[in-house]
């Protein structure tokens, strides 16, 4: 593994977590103490890990990422559980969306490498799963399934906006 990839991903990890907890944590839209909209951008880190990263490593990194976010959100295990799930499901989603020519070794699944037609469904699937698992863990009861679902939908559209915006702003290749 190339050391520049490690450094870039480490830098991405730190900056995404900082932006998440310093900026977007404050954007949670409340009404009467009920949060119906949250913006999550930290899963971008999981999304953009190099394609050939072993699942073990992705899951482990997802766990660490989620735990760090949990420390700031004061919700032990909730973000971590969602991130581990997203990290684990990532390789399956990648296999489904594999382009005809296959993936390049060490490349990241970004808009810059494979185009928006690949990146949008890839990011959308994982973000939706991530949010669904996150809100399921947060609300923690199937009794309020409608609440889980509505919060997932609202948060999904706004978060996806930032995930795509990230691609257009930085256009990362790795």
């Amino acid at each position, binding site marked *: 593994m190339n050391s520049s990839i490690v450094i870039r991903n480490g830098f991405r990890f730190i900056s995404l977590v900082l932006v998440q907890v310093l900026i977007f944590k404050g954007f949670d839209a409340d009404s009467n103490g009920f949060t119906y909209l949250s913006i999550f951008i930290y899963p971008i880190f999981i999304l953009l890990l190099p394609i050939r990263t*072993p*699942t*073990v490593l*992705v*899951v*482990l990194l*997802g*766990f660490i990422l*989620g735990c760090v976010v*949990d420390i700031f959100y004061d*919700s*032990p*295990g*909730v973000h*971590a*559980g969602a991130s*581990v*799930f997203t*990290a*684990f499901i990532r*390789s399956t989603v990648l296999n489904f969306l594999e382009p005809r020519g296959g993936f390049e070794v060490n490349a990241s699944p970004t808009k810059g490498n494979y185009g928006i037609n690949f990146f949008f469904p890839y990011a959308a699937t994982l973000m939706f799963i991530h949010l669904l698992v996150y809100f399921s*863990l*947060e609300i*923690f*009861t199937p009794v309020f399934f409608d609440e889980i679902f509505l919060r997932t939908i609202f948060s999904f559209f706004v978060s996806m906006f930032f995930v795509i915006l990230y691609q257009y702003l930085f256009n990362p290749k790795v």
Partner: protein
Amino acid sequence: MRSLVLFIVQYGGIGLFFLLEAICLYLVVNYNQQQREIWINSSNILSGNVLNLRSDFSQYYNLSEFADSLAADNARLKAKLNNAQFVQTILQDSVKDIEKQQQYTYIAARVVNSSIHLHNNTFTIDRGSRHGIRPHMGVLDANPNGGIVGIVTNVSENYSVIMALLHREIRVPAEIKRNHYHGFLTWQPSNPQTIDLIDVPKHADIRRRDTIQTSTHSALFPEGIPVAVVDSFWQEPGSNFYTINAALVNDLANVKYVYVVNNLMKGEIVNLEEAATSE
């Protein structure tokens, strides 16, 4: 070592996934107030249901034991009824001194074998000499309508055989409830739902639907237990007595529990009567 690393890299993902998800779930449940409460409540509901299921099952499993204890309770309560008491009332200078003495006690038993379609039908019950049953004790049906089952004939340690009412040799004193005319219950092998009351004096006033009950003439049963309802009656040619055909109040085909009657004063009666006849 290298192959181990390769193995972990290739297949460790799913294992690590489950391990980390379990850790996350543990953290969620233990360190988040809301999720913790939901978890505790849900697991209480679950464990409550499981425990309920278990108690339902054990209740069903213990049902026969429970029924036995209820039957024993009933036997104890029946012994407290008025017709189980011997009233020793003495008139002394117009002061009525009512004194009651226990005359009958009951032993609850379960029918383990029975016949009703033979000429001489018997019942077998699961109580015997060990439980205080002796030959020539009366047996009552546990049915709330009343009714009698028969008379104990043979007793072993744990079981007893009852000569059923539906037996050609049965002969139980009984009376018409309305006017206390006496007769004897007998049975002809015909219908297991009817019985005959014979030797009723021909001047007796008998009507259809009259109730036949046990009488004080019998040392086997407490008085006033309904036995049958008069259906038809006639005089045999050349006889001075009525024969009454009556429908049993109980169905001997489905007797499950019975009470064996223990007359505490029977010995006294029998001894006295024997002494009187031998004089």
